[in-house]
């Protein structure tokens, strides 16, 4: 099962439903579609917005490499990965992963794998803008995200 891969890095919001529909349109060989949407949290009302910086060119290439690794590892009928940059308000979507496969385990695992590597390997950085007007900090990378990515390393 070789499927199409779509990778986009964009400032605009995305339509998760349309992306998911595009992946399964006219197909009757797929049994499972998993979508993951990452949203901007307001952190208990403290956050005014996130500013997402990225490395143009490398962001698309690195996501493409992670997607290719997922395709090599699981039999995917299709995969879509979109990451936004720029100013994102609380409640708004930041990242979308859609994976389609014959069986649910492949779709779940591939989506989870893609998100773990998006966190640790794709060149994006988040800065907080706070409601109280102070310039917020750059979000710090979490050791738990490295650990999540490491669990996919082959022995």
């Amino acid at each position: 099962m070789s499927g199409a891969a779509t990778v986009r890095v964009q400032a605009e919001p995305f339509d998760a439903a349309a992306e998911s529909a595009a992946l399964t349109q006219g197909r009757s060989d797929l049994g499972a579609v998993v979508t993951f949407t990452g949203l901007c949290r307001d952190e208990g009302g403290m956050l005014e917005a996130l500013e997402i910086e990225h490395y143009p060119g490398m962001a698309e290439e690195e996501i493409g490499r992670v997607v290719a690794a997922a395709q090599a590892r699981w039999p995917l009928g299709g995969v879509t990965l979109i990451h936004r940059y720029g100013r994102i308000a609380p409640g708004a979507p930041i990242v979308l992963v859609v994976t389609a496969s014959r069986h649910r385990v492949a779709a779940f695992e591939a989506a989870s794998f893609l998100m773990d590597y998006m966190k640790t390997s794709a060149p994006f950085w988040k800065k907080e803008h706070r409601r109280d007007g102070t310039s917020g900090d750059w979000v710090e990378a979490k050791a738990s995200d490295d650990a999540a990515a490491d669990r996919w390393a082959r022995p």
Partner: protein
Amino acid sequence: MKAVYFAWVRERIGKTEEILLPPAEVATVADLIAWLKQKGEGYDAAFENGSTIRAAIDHTHVKHDAAIAGAREIAFFPPMTGG
């Protein structure tokens, strides 16, 4: 060789990119970081914990022992926080 900087590495250095012409004995990413640290306060602050800074050569992640020979673009940035 073009250098590009992101996030707080960019903020501390105070520029988004520049052309670097390091001497021949600067062979690896680690060498380049040590050389950059001597260029001024901003560089010193950006690389104060040099081992935590990530590098990419021509859009591919590299470790600090990677050779820089032939690199067109080298990027320095903090650990990523996308997703």
